[in-house]
Structures are given as C-alpha cells and as structure tokens.
C-alpha cells in the first residue's frame, strides 16, 4: 500500500485570517481516510488547497510523489484527483447528462459512453433523469450527481466534502454505502464530515481538525472510542 497523498505542514490564509495552521496528514492507496471537525475547523479549506483552488504558504502537497504546489487546479484533475465540493455545486442549469460530461472533461471523448454507463449503473436514478435540468433534482439526487460527476474522471483519489449535508437519514445511509462500495472497488477516499459517527464507521483512519490544527489521529475505531471525540462530536 503506497502513499497516494502526503500533505506536509500547510498553512492557508484568507487575507489576514489564518485558517489552516501547519497541518500534515497522509492517505494511503486503498484507504478511506476522514477529516472530522466542527464548523469552521478548516476542513473545506484543506480540500480546496489539495485541489489547488487555494494555495498554502508553506510546506508541500504530494500526490503520487509529485508536488502539486505549482500545478493549476484544472490540471490537478488530470493527475487523478477529483473533488466533490461542499454544497455539491453541480451545474444547475445544465442537464444531468451534461453535468456528467463536464466530469469527463479531461477524458477521451470515445470513452464517454462507457463512463456514462458506469455512473448510471451506480446511480440508476440519474439514468431515469438524464435529460432533466440538474437544478430541479432533489437534494439527494443532486448529491448523487455530484459524486457521479467526480467519478467520470476516473479518480485515483476521490475527496468528498460533507456528502451527507442536508440529507434525510435514509439517504445518508445510502451515500455512505456508496462510499464503501466505491472504496471496495478500488477508489481511495478522503472524506470530510461533520457526521463523525458515520464517517468513523467507514474510515480506516481519521484525523480530528480543530480551528486549523490536527489535534487527534488514529484508526476509525480508536477515534470512535476515544473520550475526546465522543464528548465533542458523538454527543456523549
């Protein structure tokens, strides 16, 4: 199991606000790793920095041994790193199929049909609605579309930012089942969640982020049982 992502001592600022204060973590091939933390801890900031939408002032981000610091975000995808951003951010005025096509932007056109088939197999709901305008999908369908769109690029590492946000409990279960399946099928996953319980149940390893710093790390099981995590994130 090689290391696929290695984040070393990154510091990220929004103007004068020091949002990420020297964090380091890594993700190994085949793992599900989760970053948990309260609102404003810096989880989304971390993912955006890995994708290149934000820049760290220090340290390095290595993906498959290659430094991402100088690579513009639109080229990061081509390296095999996809992100499902917070709030889904699907293209509301485009159809379901066009959203998926955008996910396949970096792929060869001849492979589009096969890729669409793969996503539709995973999400039959999207197949029924392939011509529907994405903004009119339900919240759960939109989340499936956001995940499907990211899968279209055939990522080696899939980063998900709060996929359970705003979904009914039954849909949350469904999304986590999908995460498990994707991982079993070979995709490495970095999952950001506020729903610590669910996240820790699927994760091999986990990190706790508090106001821009990593305060705790361990296996999913260890953290689920730790007093600190139970008090702060699991309600007892």
């Amino acid at each position: 199991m090689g290391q696929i992502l290695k984040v070393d001592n990154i510091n990220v600022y929004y103007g004068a606000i020091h949002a990420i204060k020297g964090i380091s973590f890594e993700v190994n091939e085949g793992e599900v790793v989760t970053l948990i933390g309260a609102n404003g801890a810096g989880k989304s900031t971390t993912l955006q920095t890995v994708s290149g939408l934000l820049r760290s002032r220090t340290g390095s981000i290595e993906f498959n041994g290659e430094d991402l610091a100088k690579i513009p975000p639109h080229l990061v995808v081509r390296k095999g790193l996809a992100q499902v951003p917070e709030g889904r951010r699907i293209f509301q005025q485009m159809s379901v199929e066009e959203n998926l096509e955008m996910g396949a932007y970096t792929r060869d056109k001849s492979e589009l049909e096969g890729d669409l088939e793969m996503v539709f197999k995973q999400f039959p709901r999207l197949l029924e609605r392939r011509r529907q305008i994405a903004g009119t999908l339900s919240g759960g369908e939109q989340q499936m579309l956001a995940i499907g769109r990211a899968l279209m690029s055939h990522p080696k590492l899939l980063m998900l930012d709060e996929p359970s946000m705003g979904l009914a409990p039954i849909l949350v279960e469904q999304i986590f089942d999908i995460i498990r399946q994707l991982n079993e099928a070979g995709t490495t996953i970095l999952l950001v969640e506020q729903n610590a319980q669910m996240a820790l149940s699927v994760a091999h390893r986990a990190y706790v982020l508090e106001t821009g710093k990593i305060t705790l790390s361990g296996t999913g099981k260890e953290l689920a049982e730790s007093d600190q995590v139970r008090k702060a994130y699991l309600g007892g």
Partner: protein
Amino acid sequence: MEFLSYLISGISLGSVYAIIALGYTMVYGIAKMLNFAHGDVIMVGGYISLTAMLSMNLPPIVAVLLAMVVCTVLGVIIEGLAYKPLRSAPSLAVLITAIGVSYFLQNSALLVWGANPKSYTPVIEGAMKIFDGKLSISYISLLTMASCIVIMIVLTLFINKTQLGKAMRACSEDKGAAMLMGINVNRTISVTFAIGSALAAIAGVLLCSSYTSLMPTTGSMPGIKAFTAAVFGGIGSIPGAFLGGILLGIIESMAKAYISTQLANSIVFAVLILTLLIRPAGLLGKYVPEKV
C-alpha cells in the same frame, strides 16, 4: 406599405444590435463583467474593413475576414492585458477599466484614422424591389438579417452541442466547480472574448454598410443600444440578446417614423425601464431556484 418598410428597416437595425448584444451577453455570462469597450471594437472592425477595401483593394469578403481576425486578436489582447489581472478585483474596478479601454480605443482610432468622418463603401449595394416596386429592400438589409439568423443558429448549436460550448456554460455558472472538472477557465474566457470580438467586427461592417459613415465614436451609441438590448432580453441569455436586439431595432425604427426622430432614443430607453420594472431579469432572463 410604408409600415412594412419601417418594420424591415427596424428588423435590419435590430439584427445589428442583436449581433453586438450577443457579444455583450456572452462575455457577461462568463466573465461576469460589462465590457464597455465592446462597442469600440465594432468601430475598429469598420476601419479595418474600410482600409482593406479602399487602400489595399481587397474584395469585400476578404476585408470582412481580415476585420474579424484583427478584432479577434484585439479582443483577446484586451482581455489578457486589461481584464485578466483584475479577475478577483471588485467589479467596479473592472467596469472603470472597461471604460478606460473604450477611451483608449477611440483615441487610438483618432490618432490612426483622424477625426473626420470617412464615407464607408457598403459591402454590397443595390436593392430588391417587390410589390411592383412599391417596396424596396436594400441588399445590405437582407444580408444583415440573414447574417444575424445564421450567427444565432451557429452560436446556439456551439453553446449547446460542443464540448467547448458546454464548458463555457459551466464556467458561467461556477468557475470553481468548472476548474475542478479540469476546465481551463482562463482559456475559456479568452475564447469568449474572441467570439464576441469577431461578431463585433461583422456588426461593424454591416452597420457601416447601412449608415455609410465612420468615425472614432461610431461604435459608442450602437454599443450602448446593444447593451440595452442585452439587458432588455435578459443579460446572459443568448436568445434574449437576439430577441432584445430585434425588438429594440423595431421600436427605434417605429418611434422615428411615427413619433419623433429626436425622441426615438428616449423612447427606446423608456421601454427598457418599463420592461425591467415588470421583469427585472429581462424578457428571457431566468431565475433558477437554488437548492441548498
């Protein structure tokens, strides 16, 4: 018959507005900025085509192509030098820059081609007579309307069917998400400016061929009218720019014919204001409810 003749000249004028408005609306849709220099690119297109026809003796079609190439390059350079560095600046800074670029182009034209109006040689002359010669439609009017329709169809197909067109729509909705898809947003914005500027060149040739006079400020008023047309139809919407342009041309032509030549512009803007009071997003502008 008189009415029909005014209607046709209105549609023809409106077609020019529509072609210009398409450039405004595409740039607005994707770069979220009002490129106030767009009207002046029309003027540059006019001068380039005139110079090509008169001084270089090139056939009109070559002159048009040359004007398109020059304006495309100009548009891309303007975007790269003046607007790109301001990508994350407040929109007021971008607006002021665009006004600056507009003055820069007008004054450069003043320097190169002088202040005196030049008479423009229409790319085609003559008119078609119908109803026993009671109604005459100039060939340039026909060419203008036909160009507008062709441009509209090609652009719609491009935006809806091609990968680059879809990428443009993705950028116009969410640049961050577009980057996450692997779309080169900067390049997409450049392409948008290139298309808009090429259209401005065509509009310049058609406009000057109808009004046969050209000076450094020639582009301003049509530019502002076309901007009005884009807002009228719903800024950011391609069918909106088309509809807004045509309607504006008809309203202007009718107002000139039946109300007052002096008041025509006031009437055009009054219609815009009334429309926006009733439909703030313009005729075809839409609000898409966002799910959170």
